[in-house]
């Protein structure tokens, strides 16, 4: 052994060190990192998806609102494509060679080994032609899937639409969707996406490096069948929904009808609307842009987002709170000299009634009467404590579902703020009193509501003191499941006995000669209601009606808003009357209101003329529904000369003050 013997250890050390390097790297690849394991599965394992049929949506009586029709997508797996007659394929599916190259490149970018969509939504004819020659186009295959079809073409905004999921949605749903899959984008389709979509079936196929299928993975142990989406029974009544859409044709506005006992929404009309069939098929993109650029904003879901002062519709609520507090009773009278005086300022009332009691106050919609109640409310703790009194009062108003969302099962419900005392202090500093905010007492000023909230207030009165959260789906699946929160009663804190006089007043408003809502009277049915005429700084007043019927055991509570429709009796009340009659008796006897038939109401055009938009733009894009022959409207006098600024139709500006 010589002095070089020590070099043995250097060489041995080198061996061990390098071997440890290998092991360290192996440990990282095999144990510490998951990446390669997943890559191996991506290599060999291809998931073939089987698309289930989307759930059918029906109305409350089982009539189909949205169903499925088959369509065909041409899929391509770039790696399997062999040279072929490109031109003939282009001709069959009707694209140019340029398109072909682009689409093929897109498919290659997505994946060489996985099939991706080459051409979407082939017609049945194209499919038939293509199918005969499919053998010539190696690497292409046709995948069947279903798209929506809406037999009645109604309820566009209510039903919503489905489109391809975008990147954000794909990430949000953690792997269920892949590019090209459809997802509910709005309305019921979005809200109940998980129930409607069903579950995709999966076949796990193994492929070798030459991309030849090697059979199913683990003998199909992890495969699954497609589970169809569940049927959705909505609360909508197709007949009155259709009638409502027709009546609001060529008008801006909305109708919400609720079954008071259940909170089920019977009609959900937002006008202008669009034919849901426009959002299906290959023209979807163009149609979407058409609807989107329509200045009357058909995508704006007015029943949930429209912002209106409740106006006179608020008066019964104000009376109820005062009755409950004992500030008034049904016989309390106030004097209406035609105005209401605060300090030296006189606020005008529409009429001179002298001494009137509650019932007549409601029937006549007397501003003075309700201002007087509001003064009592604010003064009940003394002149100094008006802010505190206001805060107590607005808390009670909130119980009626104002100032927040109602929690309807529909995406995008707006919550419009109800002012608290501190908000007023912020605005006016601390020197404000009931006189400053007098308009609130008659449902104007800072109080704003959606049509749904207005209808819900009517449901509360019809129920004499409670409501069930309005909802649009009656049941999911064959067992008609429903979220239990849509069965809970929400009491508003007013005893049932106080509702009598208020309902009497509303009955008189419709049915007595002195009433303001006589246009909504229905023969043989006791309708209770109120009209509202919401002033609008930009133009003609909005016509509003709220009510319920029949008086005993009410079946329907309704709110109708027709923007720029004039006074409440001009459009809103007649429309409510027609819908209620249709719902309760299932027929419309050729009645005339204000001398006009239902057909004439349907035909009236109240769309504001837009200054800065091309006037030729058709307000409702669905041509089949646009009535181009303008009949003379019975009541309309100045419609054509209405030249509003475009902002007139922007909902926020509709909240008006006196």
């Amino acid at each position, binding site marked *: *052994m010589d002095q*070089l*013997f020590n*070099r*043995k250890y*250097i*060489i*041995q050390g*080198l*061996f*061990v060190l*390098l*071997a440890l*390097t*290998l*092991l360290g*790297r*192996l*440990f990282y*690849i*095999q*144990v510490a*990192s998951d*990446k*390669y*394991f997943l*890559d*191996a*599965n991506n*290599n*060999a*394992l291809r998931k073939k998806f089987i698309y289930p049929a989307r759930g059918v949506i029906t109305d409350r009586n089982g009539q189909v609102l949205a169903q499925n029709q088959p369509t065909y997508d041409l899929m391509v797996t770039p790696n399997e494509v062999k040279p072929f007659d490109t031109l003939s394929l282009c001709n069959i599916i009707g694209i140019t060679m340029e398109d072909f190259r682009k689409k093929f490149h897109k498919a290659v970018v997505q994946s060489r080994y996985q099939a991706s969509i080459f051409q979407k939504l082939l017609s049945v004819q194209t499919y038939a032609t293509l199918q005969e020659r499919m053998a010539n186009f190696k690497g292409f295959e046709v995948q069947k899937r279903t798209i929506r079809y809406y037999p009645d073409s109604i309820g566009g905004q209510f039903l919503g639409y489905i489109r391809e999921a975008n990147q954000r949605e794909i990430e949000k749903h953690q792997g269920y969707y892949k590019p090209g899959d459809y997802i509910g984008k709005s309305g019921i389709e979005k809200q109940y996406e998980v129930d409607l979509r069903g579950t995709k079936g999966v076949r796990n196929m*193994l*492929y*070798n*490096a*030459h991309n030849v299928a*090697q059979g199913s993975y683990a003998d199909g142990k992890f495969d699954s069948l497609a589970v169809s989406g569940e049927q959705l029974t909505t609360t909508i009544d197709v007949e009155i929904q259709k009638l409502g859409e027709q009546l609001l044709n060529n008008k801006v506005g909305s109708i919400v009808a609720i079954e008071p006992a259940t909170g089920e929404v019977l009609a959900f009309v937002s006008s202008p609307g669009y034919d849901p069939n426009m959002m299906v098929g290959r023209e979807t993109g163009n149609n979407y842009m058409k609807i989107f650029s329509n200045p009357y904003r058909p995508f704006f879901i007015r029943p949930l987002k429209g912002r209106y002062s409740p106006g006179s519709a608020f008066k019964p609520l104000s009376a109820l709170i005062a009755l409950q507090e004992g500030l008034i009773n049904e016989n309390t009278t106030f004097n209406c000299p035609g105005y209401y005086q605060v300090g030296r300022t006189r606020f005008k009332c529409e009429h001179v009634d002298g001494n009137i009691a509650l019932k007549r106050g409601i029937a006549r919609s007397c501003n003075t009467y309700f201002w007087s109640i509001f003064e009592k409310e604010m003064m009940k703790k003394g002149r100094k404590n008006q802010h505190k009194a206001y805060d107590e009062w607005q808390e009670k108003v909130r119980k009626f579902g104002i100032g927040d969302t109602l929690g309807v099962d529909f995406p995008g419900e707006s919550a419009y703020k109800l002012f608290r005392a501190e908000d007023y202090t912020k605005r006016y500093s601390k020197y404000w009193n009931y006189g400053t905010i007098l308009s609130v007492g008659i449902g104007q000023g800072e109080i704003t509501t959606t049509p749904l909230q207005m209808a819900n207030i009517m449901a509360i009165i019809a129920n004499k003191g409670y409501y069930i959260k309005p909802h649009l789906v009656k049941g999911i699946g064959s067992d008609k499941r429903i979220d239990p929160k849509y069965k809970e009663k929400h009491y508003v804190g007013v005893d049932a006995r106080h509702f009598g006089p208020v309902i009497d007043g509303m009955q008189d408003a419709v049915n007595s000669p002195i009433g303001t809502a006589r246009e909504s009277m229905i023969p043989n049915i006791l309708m209770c209601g109120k009209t509202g005429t919401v002033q609008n700084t930009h133009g003609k007043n909005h016509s509003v009606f709220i009510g319920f019927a029949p008086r005993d055991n009410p079946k329907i509570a309704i709110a109708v808003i027709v923007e720029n429709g004039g006074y409440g009796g001009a459009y809103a009340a007649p429309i409510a009357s027609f819908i209620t009659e249709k719902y309760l008796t299932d027929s419309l006897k050729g009645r005339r209101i204000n001398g006009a038939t239902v057909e004439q109401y349907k035909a009236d055009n109240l769309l504001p003329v837009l200054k800065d938009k091309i006037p030729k733009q058709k307000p409702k894009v669905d041509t089949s529904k646009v009535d181009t022959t303008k009949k003379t409207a019975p009541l309309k006098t100045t419609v054509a000369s209405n030249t509003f600024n475009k902002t007139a139709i922007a909902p926020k500006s509709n909240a008006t003050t006196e």
Partner: protein
Amino acid sequence: MQQQNNRFFFNVDWITILIYMALCAVGFINIFSVQYDPDKSEAFSFAAEYGKQLIFIISGLILGLSILLLDSKFFSVFAPVVYGITIILLITVLVVGRNVGGNQAWIPLGSFRLQPSEFAKFGTALLLARYISTFNLKLNTFKPIIICAAIIVLPMALIMLQPDAGSMLVFLSFMFPLYREGLPGNLLIIFWGAVLLFILNLFVTPSLLIISILIIGGLFAYNTRKRVQKVINVGVITAIAICYLFVAKYIFENVLKPHQRTRIELILGLTSDNRGAGYNVIQSKIAIGAGQLTGRGFLEGTQTKYDYVPAQSTDFIFSTIGEEWGFAGCFVVIGLYVFLLLRILNMAERQRSVFSRVYGYSIACILFFHVFINIGMTIGIMPVIGIPLPFISYGGSSLWSFTILLFIFLKLDSNRMGFI
């Protein structure tokens, strides 16, 4: 005669033979797995690779055992002859060789093909051992170093003509036995320093590299400023290093073949190519990574079963081990190698004759070079230079040559007390 035989088998290191057989078995099992096709439930076939490998293993074992029967003096005496034969074979292959995959490395022999570069390894090892064992040789003097270098470089040059860079590089491992026998450590440092500079040259901008070399040189010069001669030495080395940079750049860009450049660039991460030369490595890494801790199980690896890894029974056999047997399997295999190699080194140190010791070091280093580069390339830390994994990769030439290498040493070891 009988008695002599008994003593002879008693002296043979049976543990090494057991490890050898274990590694051969690992090879057979994994080659079987690569070949196995679940859809074709054929009977065992000697035409398939696993069948041939079984033949190679058995014949290799017979070959090895017959080597044990030779006289130990034979190897020392005939070392120049063996070396000469392998050199002749290396020349022959350039004339009559069959071109497989761009390399003219194979001599067809009936249904088998012979790869002379595999056999050149033990030829060189024998001659090197014979030369170094010359009495009173000092390996820190000029002439012996040149002669050793000549013995090594001659087969390297012939192999390079095929061209088979991978097999050629294996001969670099002879540096370590020389080091053990007294080759100055500085030479090794200079050599590997040059390799390091070559690699850095591809990464780093030349100006930056030159500045850093100047700074390092300056520091050394400052350290030795009291002795003028040393300062001059440092200056010369620095100047040579800088010149070398340009030469290296030139060699890389003009001498190396494009596929060799690509591979070097790939391994250094300068380029990425998922479908070309990088494909093997990516698929191999995926296969190994898919094994995770305990592996997917025998015949269950999808990467292996469905042919995702090219050359999987030969150069990339380790990816099968990684996928089907997991980290545990890799650990066992690498453990077997390390145990075998350390054992060979220890056995080499117990030899009385320099010849046996040098030979032992040579084969340990050759084997280690193969193992490290081969496994390293399957997991992407070494360039893909296409050399087999000893005893495991499919192929008769490589298995036989490794067997011969090992069993010659076992024979020498069994006679360790004698003089050669």
